Each structure stands twice: as C-alpha cells, then as structure tokens.
C-alpha cells in the first residue's frame, strides 16, 4: 500500500483517539460526573470510530476542498457525539446535542491553539514524526489543564440551569451549535496564518472561547434567577394561604373561647348544686368539641410551624393542599424545629417533592388513601420519612431505573432524578421498604 497513505491513516487515527478522549473528558466536566473509563471508552469507540472514519474519507478520499470537508465532518461529529451522549448519559436528544456543542467549543479552541502554536514553532522541522509527537503531547497536556480548570470552577454547576430549562430546548441547542461553529471557523482559519499574526490569532481564539463561555454562563444565570423568582413567588403565595389559614384558626379560637366561657359558667352552677354527673358529661363533651373543632388544626399548624425553612414549608404546604384536593388523609409529624442541614434546600425540595408526588399518586389508587410524612430533626441527623399504603408488590430493585413506572408510558423519571440529585450528596442515605402493605421511603442527611 501507499506509504504516504498509511502514514496519513496512522496520524489520523492518533488524532481521532486523542481528540475524542479529550472531547469525552470535557463531556464529563460538563455533566459534572466523575470520569468513568468504561463510558469514556465506549464514547471514543462509538463516535470516534464513526465520525473519525467519515472524516477521513471526506478529507482524503473525496473531491471536496479541505474546508468544506472539515466543516461537514464537524457537523457529523457533533451529531454522532450527541447520539452517544443520548445513549451513554441518558439525556434527551436536544440536551445531548447542546452538551456536545459546548464540549466542542472547548475542544476545538484547544485544538486551534495547539495546532497553530506547534505549526508555528516546528514549521522548519523536517521530521514529521517529531512534529506530530509534539503536537499530540501538547494537545493532551492542554486538554488536561483545561479540564482541570473546568472542574475546579464547577462548570457543570454553573451551566446546569442552561441545560435544565424545559422550554425552547431546540433554540438553545441551535444557539450552542452556532457558538460552536464560530470556533470551528477560527480553527479552519489557522491555515491562513502568517507567523506574525500567530499571537493575534491565539489571542483571538482564547478571547472568543471566553466570550462564548460567558454567554453560556450568562444565559444559565438568567435561568437560575428566573427559577429562584418563580420559587419565591410560589413561596409567597403559600405563605399567604398559610397566614389566611392561621387567621381562620384564630377566629375559630375566639368563638371556641366564648363557648368555653359559657360552658364554664354552666359548670360552676352544677358544681354549686353538687351535680357531679352533669359536670362529667359537660367535660367529656368539651374535650370532644375541642378536638373536633380546633385540636386537629392546632396540631397541624404546630407541625408545620416547626419547619423553620420557608422553602421547605412552602413545599410541604403545597403538597398538603394537593392531598386535600385529592381527599387523601395526611399525617404530618414534625417533632422538632428544622433548621439547616447538609443539603441544599432546593435540592432537598426537589427530592421531597418527588417522594411526595409518588406517594400521593400511589395512595389515590388504594382503598384507604393516606400519606404520612415525618420530618425528624434530632441527634445530629435530619430524617425524612414518606409512607403510603400499597397493596401490591413493589419492585425495589428496578424501580430506580429511568423509564420504570407503574403509571404507564412516558413516566418514570422521578426516582431516577431523585437518585441523580442524591449522587451529589454522598453523606445522604436512603432506605426503601414495602412491608405489611405500606410503602416507605426514607432519607437521612447529617446536619
């Protein structure tokens, strides 16, 4: 075979391996997970092999000019990587594509800088081997450095809201695609470089990348504040309802006190007459009256009052309302006041929301619907326990998988989201059980 051809093939394979490893590494940085080498390997194999070979064919074996071939293969790369991300990371298609584009921005700009620098400094060398060896080593080093920077600045957390927003996913995917294409154009331009402009060129690439990242972070930040605003509004609404509830209770207390005073006057008269039988009867009725009219409400309000974190209180109130609407009896127990604990309250809210929604939806189908919620903040730990009746069997091993649901198609993301959130809190432990026809989920977090 043609020696030059073999040589080009070898170089191309090395290039693909290294750039896809770095690309895959960036994917982990963006999704915020620890690097799992099996996943990385599968990614390199799948997208590297497919887009790498197509790229090779387009570049060296077709009649397209270099730039066109490169652009087409970039788009193909993005598409294949998005497909890989969909399967390996279990994101939906648009999000996977967005993530691929963002990772692409970093990877291409790295490549652009390295390629231009190495080309510049080794322009005179005869040895192609030296050239490519230096190129690959630099590529790997810079890739590792950038990855470290991304990890240290918790890039995944910063960009989380950019990825998580539900609406207009395709718009943001398109936006990310455009941003990535801009970097690609720069990458292609490096061929037109003269040695004088190299510094300007690299400065341009770095500047552009930083600019693009800042655009992403800005949009992400906007989404985060929008969400916080939404939460605050619902929190306010819940507290309004809560205050109305308390005011209502106050009114009923006043009425009760009035009746109570009358009853006491009556009892005084009975006491004077020595009619202990009548007194006993009145006392009995009093206790039942109290319990029925006010006792329950005071109990409920005390428990809710013990939740000292307004965000949590708001969530519990809204779920209680949901239960009332669905005529599900709720037993809420909060023995001790709840203050801050080892978990971000928004994340906790999401988890509690998932557990309660599951409990509510399950309880509705049972003969005697109820949901129990115990929040115990004591002894250095905060334990949450959600229980509901469940007359069937529960598949404790498989219910955590995404897509598993007893409620039909297109469901089943709650518990896998729950697990995903908890992955960020290694100190939190969970217990699930289904015994004596009661299904229980518990979550314990150190304070």
């Amino acid at each position, binding site marked *: 075979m043609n020696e030059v051809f073999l040589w080009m093939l070898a170089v191309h394979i090395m290039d693909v391996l290294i750039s896809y490893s770095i690309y895959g590494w960036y994917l982990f940085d963006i999704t915020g997970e620890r690097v799992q080498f099996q996943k990385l390997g599968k990614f390199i194999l799948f997208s590297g092999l497919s887009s790498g070979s197509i790229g090779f064919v387009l570049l060296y074996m077709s009649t397209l000019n270099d730039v066109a071939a490169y652009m087409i293969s970039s788009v193909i790369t993005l598409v294949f990587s998005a497909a890989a991300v969909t399967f390996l990371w279990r994101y939906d298609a648009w999000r996977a594509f967005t993530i691929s584009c963002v990772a692409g921005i970093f990877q291409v700009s790295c490549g652009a800088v390295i390629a231009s620098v190495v080309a510049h400094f080794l322009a005179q060398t005869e040895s192609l081997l030296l050239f490519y060896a230096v190129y690959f080593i630099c590529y790997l080093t810079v890739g590792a450095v950038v990855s470290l920077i991304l990890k240290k600045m918790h890039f995944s957390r910063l960009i989380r809201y950019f990825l998580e927003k539900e609406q207009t996913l395709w718009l943001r995917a398109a936006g990310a695609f455009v941003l990535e294409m801009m970097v690609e154009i720069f990458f292609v331009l490096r061929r037109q470089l003269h040695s004088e402009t190299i510094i300007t060129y690299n400065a341009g690439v770095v500047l552009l990348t930083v600019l693009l990242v800042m655009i992403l972070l800005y949009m992400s930040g906007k989404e985060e504040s929008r969400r916080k605003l939404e939460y605050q509004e619902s929190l306010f609404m819940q507290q309004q309802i809560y205050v109305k509830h308390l005011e209502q209770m106050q009114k009923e207390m006043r009425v009760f006190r009035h009746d109570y005073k009358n009853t006491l006057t009556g009892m005084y008269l009975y006491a004077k007459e020595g009619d202990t039988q009548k007194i006993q009867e009145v006392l*009995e009725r009093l*206790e039942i009256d109290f*319990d029925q009219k006010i*006792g329950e409400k005071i*109990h409920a309000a005390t*428990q809710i009052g013990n939740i000292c974190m307004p965000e949590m209180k708001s969530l519990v109130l809204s779920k209680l309302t949901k239960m009332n609407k669905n005529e599900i009896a709720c*037993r809420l*127990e909060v*023995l*001790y006041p709840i203050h801050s604990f080892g978990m971000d309250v928004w994340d906790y809210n999401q988890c509690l929301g998932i557990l309660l929604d599951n409990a509510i939806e399950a309880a509705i189908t049972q003969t005697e619907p109820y949901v*129990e919620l*115990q929040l*115990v903040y*004591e*002894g*250095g*730990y905060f*334990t949450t*326990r959600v*229980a509901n009746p469940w007359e069937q069997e529960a*598949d*404790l*091993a498989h219910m955590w998988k995404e897509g598993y649901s007893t409620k039909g198609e297109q469901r089943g993301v709650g518990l896998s989201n729950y697990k995903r959130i908890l*992955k960020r809190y*290694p100190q939190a*432990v*969970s*217990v*699930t*059980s*289904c*015994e004596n026809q009661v299904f229980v989920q*518990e979550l*314990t*977090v*150190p304070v």
Partner: protein
Amino acid sequence: MINIYLCDDEDRIRDQIQSEIEKKILIEAYDMCVAFSTNSPKELLEASCRAQQKQNIYFLDVELKDAEYDGFLLGKELRRIDPHGTLVYITSFQNLAFRTFQYHLEAYDYIIKDPKKQRDSIGKCLESLHVRLRQETNAQISEVYTVKIGDMVKYVPLKDIICFETTAKSHHVILHTKSSRMEFVGNLNEISRQMGDAFIRTHRSYLVALDKITDINLKNNSLMAGNVECLVSRRMKSELLKRVGRRGTPEEGERGWLPVPFPKCKEP
C-alpha cells in the same frame, strides 16, 4: 418476671396508671410487676442503668416537661441503655406524633391518659405485650443484624437478609431484604467477616446469603437471590457452585444464619 418502669410528671395520672396496670396484671396473672415509678426522667435513667435485668417495659409520658429530656429524648436514651426493652408512650391526644416515636424509637404502642379510655387502652396494650414477649425467645433476639442509619439503629432479622451490595458511593453498602433496601455506612469486607459462612462473596461488590440463592446464570456471570440480581466474578464461580452444592438437604438450609457444617463425613 418482667419489670415495668413508669415515668410521668403528673403524679396523680401516674399513680392512676400504675394502679390500672397492677390491676390488670393481677387479673390476668401476668408475669410482670411495676418495679419503679417516678416523675423525673433522670431518676428513671439511673434506675434503668442500675438494673441488672434488661428488656423491661417502659411507660413514658410523651410530653415530659423536663429541661433535658422530653418524651422522645428519654426514649432514645433508654434505647441505648436497654436496646431490647419495650417502650410504651402515654399521651393525652390520640395519635399525637406517634409515628415518629414508633419509627425512630421502635415504640411499641401508646396508651391514653383520659381516665375513661385509660383502662381499656392499658388492658389491650398489656395483653398484646404479653403475647409478644412470650413468643420472643432469647435465640430470636440474637439473630439480628444491626444497621446504624444516621442516629437510629435498625434491627434486621438475619433470616431476612438476601444480600449486601456496594454502591457507587464510597464507604456505603446496601442491604437487600425481600421487602426493603437500606443504604448505610459500612464496609463489605468487615461485613463479610461478621456474617461468616452463611454468606458468600460472589463478587467484589456483592455478599450474598447462600440460602437465598434461587438461580445461577454462569454465562451471564450473575445469580438471582430473592428478587435481586447479583454479579458473580469469574474467580468465584467454582467456589460458588461448591458451596451451593454443599448446602445439601433442605433441613440444613433452614438453619438460616448458622454456619454450614463441613460435611467431611458425608462426602462420597
């Protein structure tokens, strides 16, 4: 003779409850007696510490007004002193936060302070206690595995354990039983040592109870125990088959947690 301890800061109520309990014990000739009655949680704790005999019954007021110990904290402390004791709570409101007590402290039951309902309530409670304590033998009490989750201690009967599994989280282990799945801080190597020969470490991440294995699929490198799929490493395949085969007759398997005897004399 099972000792009953009483703690309620309303003396009149406490005396009344004591006399009701004693009446019931007399009528039904239960092997119980009221050993100690006080309004101070601290005194109760001291008495309990000093007591030679454990596994007592404690009737505690839910709403103790003590500065250091309320009903819950008193119960928690008592659990530490007498882990297998029985806690019964005395409450003036029906069902007030009872689940929390029942769940965190494994409180057995509650009785109501209201004099009209008291007798019935106490009567029923003592009856069911009597039955339960008769059923529990010492042997059964020792056959539990203790799991510490946060501040709580849970007891899992050894015969219910299907397997232990490591999680992606470091230092954490999942305990699988037929009806539950618990995550806790633990180390599979230590647990393996603790559990002995009734369990087999089929894989770096799995420690399985031999008598729960229902299906072995060597081609897939997995086995089914209960409804949990466990992995089998290549190294352990032969050992697994050996020990499963060695389980022998059903009577042996029924011994549950007891170590499988080496059937030297039974080998062909």
